[in-house]
């Protein structure tokens, strides 16, 4: 319990600690000390996770629960099994090296406080993701990784490209996150739990549910965006704007692996259907090929690694998609391999960048003499990446080939192995591009600085990682039993038995590897020409790239479109607004009452319930109201408005409402005087020039409103169903309230509360009016005085 909490929350605690102390830390020059101190955090986590490994074998996965939202079964619960241990080790282990590396990498000018704050937050979030046992615990950490990676990628926020990359990452992974949220909820509808362990046992229920496909698509959308699967991969190259330690961390072991992790985590519950294979493997293979093609085009080493990462992630995804036990094991193995060599390579790029002031192959080349140590590391990393023997990469690539041969639901017999080889060709090519162009060929231009090697502090991490790569190739058994088998078991749902080794005799995969090397060399040789063709293609059909959709469509297009639409819709004209509002309300009132079966009952209409004088009053009322509307002279209009009011008041008289009549007369008169007082300062009516159409539309709406209200009134007059509560007032007014004027008693007694607030309305109105007329003036004089001074 304590251990797992420590593992997950220690980084958070560290970041909180940094946050709280940040005012102090900002002032004191922290120098390198902060980084060294922070390195203890991943170290502690790593140790704790490694200490867990023995326990793994002895028993069932350990689970801890902290209830969060009971209502929905959302908990903070943790699951420690092989998969989470594997990822935990990657996250904390590589995290440790990254922190060490960053101590060298970050110059004193950088805001280290913020860097480690974000980094620790990110690490905690990642550890949370992999150890979560509740989908929403996982989701929480998942979104936290989005936010903290957003902060990390945008660390150099003064750079436009950084901000662009950060936003892009956030938007695209955010899209996935939202889909995933929905997917989890759909999954909940199948399983009625968010508990991952429970879900994993319900594989058959899930696969047979009608909601299986939507749940899978939605959840996988989250994984695919996070793991930069085509076409969602576009955020990753732009994320390279981050400081290199961040890239090394995010794109080798952590952030991008989160999608892989979740796919692997849920595969026991979801995999094994044709749809799963088509979706996951389809995405994986496509990504692998496309990213490989794009990677060979890059001249920026970091971009090259970025595309390479995408391609490798595609490969892992494909293996998970095959859904066999063997492919699952292969995926696990490659996860580990990829993390090791990719982190090492990123760090090398960082060293090159530092040493040369650039990392573009146009300027950088022939570094093997100036940077001998880096060169050695790069050799190890690249060969492993290319899948050449004695390195870990070879083992996992062989396993990949093997699994393509035995995949279920294969559409056409040799298609998938061919695609696998095709993709690996590019892997081979870009690995060698990195190595040969960077360390052997001479670059066309000179770099800004004369290249120099990094000191020990910078080299320590990549060296260690390179050693790991070698170990993974030479003695894979060292890891397989303790680490990989439990992980593979978690992925496949069956106990795993790994026999990793460099040599399995001459078999189909080996032959495929042979072809890979041969054809890969051919591609590498023709690289310049291929690149030229690629440049031509991308220049002539820019819309082919998903980036085009994001940049032109999302970033520019939607704001432009919405601005246009908004300019039309939210036009700024009060008249327009009123028009829409009135039309909408009237139309829907009409619609709903007709749809509820309103019909005009003519026979009831002509039963005269009106006295002569009432009828006459109403007739004159109609005249006066019409006159108000049509007068071209404002004084005449006010006069007829006044008459309308007086007639309404007279209507109150003849309807037996003396209080009302008095009030209406008074209010009307005072209103007219107010209107006059205000009109005094304002110009007379101007001629309203309007087009024939506008006039027609205005009159049309007015008539509509008239008709609808008229018909509403007919309904009102037709429906007196029950005795109103007024009988009570009439009976009790004198007895209980001591007043004979029932209306007044209602106002001041039965409904005195209304009246209290009504006089408040009065008071508020006059305060507001006072402010409008007087406060403004005061301020004006003050500002005038101020400007004079």
């Amino acid at each position, binding site marked *: 319990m304590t251990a797992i909490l420590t593992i997950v929350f220690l980084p958070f605690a560290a970041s909180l600690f940094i946050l709280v102390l940040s005012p102090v830390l900002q002032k004191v020059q922290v120098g390198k000390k902060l980084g060294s101190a922070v390195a203890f955090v991943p170290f502690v986590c790593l140790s704790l996770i490694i200490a867990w490994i023995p326990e793994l074998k002895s028993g069932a996965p350990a689970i801890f629960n902290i209830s969060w939202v009971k209502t929905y079964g959302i908990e903070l619960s943790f699951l420690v099994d092989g998969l989470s241990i594997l990822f935990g080790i990657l996250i904390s282990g590589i995290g440790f090296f990254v922190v060490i590396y960053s101590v060298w990498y970050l110059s004193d000018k950088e805001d280290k406080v913020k860097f480690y704050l974000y980094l620790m937050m990110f690490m905690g979030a990642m550890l949370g993701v992999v150890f979560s046992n509740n989908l929403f615990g996982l989701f929480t950490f998942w979104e936290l990784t989005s936010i903290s990676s957003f902060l990390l990628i945008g660390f150099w926020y003064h750079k436009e490209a950084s901000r662009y990359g950060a936003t892009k990452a956030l938007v695209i992974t955010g899209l996935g996150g939202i889909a995933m949220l929905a997917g989890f909820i759909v999954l909940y509808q199948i399983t009625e739990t968010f508990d991952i362990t429970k879900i994993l046992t319900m594989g058959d229920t899930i696969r047979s549910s009608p909601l299986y496909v939507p749940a899978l698509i939605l959840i996988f959308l989250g994984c695919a965006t996070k793991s930069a699967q085509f076409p969602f991969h576009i955020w990753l190259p732009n994320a390279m704007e981050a400081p290199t330690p961040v890239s090394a961390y995010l794109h080798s072991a952590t952030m991008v692996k989160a999608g892989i992790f979740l796919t692997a985590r849920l595969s026991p519950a979801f995999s094994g259907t044709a749809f799963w294979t088509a979706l996951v493997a389809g995405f994986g293979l496509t990504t692998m090929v496309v990213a490989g093609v794009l990677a060979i085009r890059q001249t920026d080493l970091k971009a090259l690694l970025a595309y390479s990462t995408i391609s490798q992630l595609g490969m892992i995804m494909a293996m998970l998609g095959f859904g066999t036990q063997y492919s699952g094991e292969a995926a696990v193995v490659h996860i580990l391999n990829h993390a090791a060599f990719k982190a090492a390579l990123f760090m090398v790029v960082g060293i090159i960048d530092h040493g040369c002031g650039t990392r573009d192959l146009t300027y950088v080349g022939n570094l093997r003499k100036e940077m001998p140590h880096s060169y050695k590391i790069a050799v190890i990393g690249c060969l492993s990446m290319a899948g050449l023997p004695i390195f870990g990469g070879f083992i996992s690539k062989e396993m990949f080939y093997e699994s393509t041969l035995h995949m279920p639901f294969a559409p056409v017999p040799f298609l998938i192995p061919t695609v696998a080889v095709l993709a690996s060709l590019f892997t081979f090519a870009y690995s060698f591009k990195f190595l040969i162009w960077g360390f052997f060929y001479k670059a066309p231009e000179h770099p800004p600085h004369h290249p120099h090697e990094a000191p020990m502090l910078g080299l320590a991490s990549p060296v260690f990682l390179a050693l790991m790569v070698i170990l993974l190739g030479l003695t894979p058994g060292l890891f397989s039993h303790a680490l990989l088998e439990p992980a593979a078991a978690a992925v496949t749902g069956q106990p795993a038995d790994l026999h990793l080794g460099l040599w399995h005799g001459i078999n189909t995969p080996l032959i495929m590897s042979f072809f890979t090397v041969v054809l890969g060399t051919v591609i590498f040789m023709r690289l310049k020409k291929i690149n030229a063709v690629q440049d031509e293609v991308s220049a002539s059909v820019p819309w082919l790239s998903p980036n085009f959709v994001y940049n032109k469509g999302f970033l520019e297009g939607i704001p432009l479109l919405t601005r246009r639409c908004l300019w039309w819709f939210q036009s700024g004209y009060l008249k327009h607004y009123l028009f829409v509002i009135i039309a909408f309300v009237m139309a829907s009132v009409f619609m709903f009452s007709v749809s509820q079966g309103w019909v005009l009952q003519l026979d009831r209409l002509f039963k005269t319930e009106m006295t002569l004088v009432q009828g006459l009053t109403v007739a004159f009322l109609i005249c006066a109201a019409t006159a108000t509307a049509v007068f071209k002279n404002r004084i005449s209009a006010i006069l007829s408005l006044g008459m309308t009011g007086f007639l309404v008041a007279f209507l109150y008289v003849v309807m037996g409402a003396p*209080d009302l*009549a008095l009030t209406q007369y008074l209010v009307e008169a005072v209103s007219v005087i107010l209107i006059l007082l205000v009109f005094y300062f304002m110009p007379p009516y101007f001629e309203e020039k309007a087009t024939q159409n506008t006039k027609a539309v205005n009159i049309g709406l007015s008539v509509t409103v008239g008709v609808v209200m008229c018909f509403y009134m007919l309904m009102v007059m037709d429906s007196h169903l029950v005795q109103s509560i007024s009988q009570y007032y009439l009976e009790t007014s004198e007895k209980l309230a001591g007043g004979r004027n029932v209306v007044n008693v209602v106002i001041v007694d039965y409904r005195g509360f209304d009246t209290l607030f009504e006089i408040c309305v009065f008071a508020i109105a006059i305060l507001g009016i006072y402010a409008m007329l007087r406060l403004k003036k005061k301020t004006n004089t003050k500002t005038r005085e101020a400007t004079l001074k």
Partner: protein
Amino acid sequence: MSSIIFKSIVKVVSPILMLFSVYLLLRGHQLPGGGFIAGLMTSAGLVLIYLAYGCERFDWRNRSRFFYFLFSGGLALSFLTGMAGLFVGGFFLKSGFTHMHMPLINEDWEFASAAIYDIGVYLVVCGVCVSLMTLLGEEK
């Protein structure tokens, strides 16, 4: 410039108007009338004075506070009547009335809390309308 005919008429009409408004206020509980009507009536009377004599005659600076406290006080009065209901009658706005025999004049008078409430209303309406008229009348 106002006509002196008008001015002289206002001298007669306005006090009667005010008296009438008080009449409307006090009998509101039994017959048509009440705080609003009376308040507006008083304002109409004041409008008449303003029309005849202009509002410059009445120094805003001195009167504004008077009108201000008129409506604030009215609001407070109504509110306090409601609060009295709370403390005496057990409910906010609980009203009460009593018939009292006036010894000297030998009449039955009704005392109702609602009447006090209505006076508050009257003061608010008066204060607000008059402030409004004065504010607008003084606009230049």
